[in-house]
């Protein structure tokens, strides 16, 4: 990795240059909630000033730039005696600016499963490889608990990462593409003073966390508490609405839909984002549902996130962004559910 520093003014010029050449997405305020809090999302931008890089955290994660909610896997064309299949992976190069450490760590987890796992997805790989990802540190919002899961700092999964040291950004360059892009930009070698500022910045951010989740021994607590009444308590509140999974940066469950177009001359096979919290997720041919109760469905989402599945080497896949907790109208959030379980144990 290579390190550089860049003034914020020069950085703005650099980003505007990228925006001029590529489809670019960045954080924008889209709404204000009834309680006064701003709502941000990653949106397409046409200039640096449209973005709000001081944003807290986006409501939905960047996951869906890589795993779209709906994605065509293949297209079929029928003729009288034959059919043809077309598969398209191509994506145009694009840029995402301002992803938070948790967003990037979440992508690194998805990379493990969808790039280097037993069944790599060429669709995911194409989107990932063609996206230039610029990350940015920030003061954690009060309900983030990424630090508890070790995801408050980031070492891989991005092209460029910016840490705010006052007048300048301290840049971590993690790809040759980023190195080449920065060639014509005024960015210098960090001085001793810059290094000190960086250490101070990191220390300040680390100390700013207010929310915490006890993850020590969590995997065995989950094994022991499989039948705990805690699941019913929270399950009774759950709307099985899937909102948590849709906004979560690491939930990757999907369904496959096959649709014959109304003209009967073509059809499509599509991957649609799904959630283990939805009522028919575990329903099989013949109608039997392996998870008939709300509490079962809620529980399995927690098991995947904190206990892990063999598919991801039994590692937890939660990065602690609390997007699920913020999106859940029923107030179900990892912090409280896990603390209930730990108390049971």
């Amino acid at each position: 990795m290579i390190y550089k520093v860049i003034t914020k003014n020069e950085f703005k010029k650099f980003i505007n240059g990228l925006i001029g050449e590529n489809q670019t997405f960045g954080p924008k305020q889209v709404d204000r909630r009834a309680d006064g809090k701003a709502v941000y999302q990653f949106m397409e931008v046409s200039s640096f000033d449209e973005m709000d890089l001081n944003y807290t955290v986006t409501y939905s994660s960047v996951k869906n730039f890589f795993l779209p909610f709906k994605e065509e896997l293949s297209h079929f064309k029928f003729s009288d005696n034959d059919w043809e299949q077309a598969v398209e992976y191509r994506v145009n190069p694009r840029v995402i600016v301002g992803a938070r450490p948790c967003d990037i760590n979440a992508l690194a987890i998805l990379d493990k499963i969808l790039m280097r796992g037993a069944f790599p997805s060429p669709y995911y790989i194409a989107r990932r490889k063609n996206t230039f990802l610029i990350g940015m540190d920030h003061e954690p919002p009060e309900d983030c608990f990424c630090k508890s899961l070790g995801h408050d700092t980031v070492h891989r999964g991005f092209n460029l990462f910016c840490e705010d040291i006052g007048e300048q950004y301290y840049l971590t360059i993690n790809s040759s593409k980023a190195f080449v892009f920065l060639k014509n930009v005024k960015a210098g070698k960090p001085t001793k003073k810059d290094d000190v500022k960086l250490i101070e910045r990191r220390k300040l951010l680390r100390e700013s966390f207010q929310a915490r989740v006890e993850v020590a021994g969590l995997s065995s607590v989950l094994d022991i508490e499989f039948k705990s009444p805690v699941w019913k308590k929270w399950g009774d509140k759950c709307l099985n609405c899937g909102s948590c999974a849709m906004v979560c940066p690491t939930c990757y469950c999907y369904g496959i839909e096959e649709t014959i177009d109304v003209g009967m001359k073509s059809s499509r096979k599509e991957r649609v984002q799904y959630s283990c919290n939805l009522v028919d997720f575990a329903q099989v041919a013949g109608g039997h549902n392996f998870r008939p109760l709300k509490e079962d469905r809620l529980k399995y989402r927690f098991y995947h996130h904190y206990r892990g599945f063999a598919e991801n080497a039994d590692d937890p896949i939660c990065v602690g962004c609390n997007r699920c907790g913020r999106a859940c109208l029923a107030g179900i959030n990892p912090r409280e559910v896990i603390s209930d379980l730990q108390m049971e144990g």
Partner: protein
Amino acid sequence: MKYLGIDPQKVKIGVFDFTGCEGCELQLANKEESLLEFLSLLEVVNFREISSDSSQDYDIALVEGSISRKDEIERLTDIRARAKVLVAMGACACFGGVNYLKNQYPLKDVVKEVYGMHSVETSKVKRIADVVKVDLNIPGCPVSKSEVESIIVSIVVGAEVKIPKYPVCVECKQNVNTCVVDLGKICLGPITRAGCGAVCPTGKAGCLGCRGPAEDANYGSLREILREKGHCESEIEQKLCFYNAFNGSTEK
């Protein structure tokens, strides 16, 4: 038209309207870009809005509207006797729809309010399923033409008819909307069957449940959430009653 070399059997359908606004029927004639293809899958034998034919020989009867007169009961019973498959189409047919609001008041007051001096014969509003056996519900106010298309295609090729079981929130989140409950409004999306693409919350209006209940919907929890957000019981009740889609299923 051939599908994979096989000539699919055209479906003989009749479309019938009862008490409703004919909006669902109009949907069938909508979406011009695929209208010809849609019609080529069908043999429409009885549909007042697009054809003057009125044969009584059909496999599928698409029934729009609710039942609010005695003669409608007779006509519907007759249709049921002829149709192999009877489909209730739209919120009025499936749940009673907006018409059902009438049942909250004494009949004679309703007649007086609406028709003044020219009183008419009318009865309490019934769902299609209150009168005859319904084989398939296509909910919505109005129904979505794309959904109707995909159902007809499934019938023609003999595939399973699929209507989402999960709630509107899934589609709403997939549209990357701000939740309108967070904006201070009432939304019935968490208990309502998806399939409309969450059009109302995408337009910043709360869902009123025109597609009826999602499977295993959690009414109690939604009521509690809305109460905690400061919405009063009568306001919540009013939304739940709008299409009569949750009648009998919403425990407090």
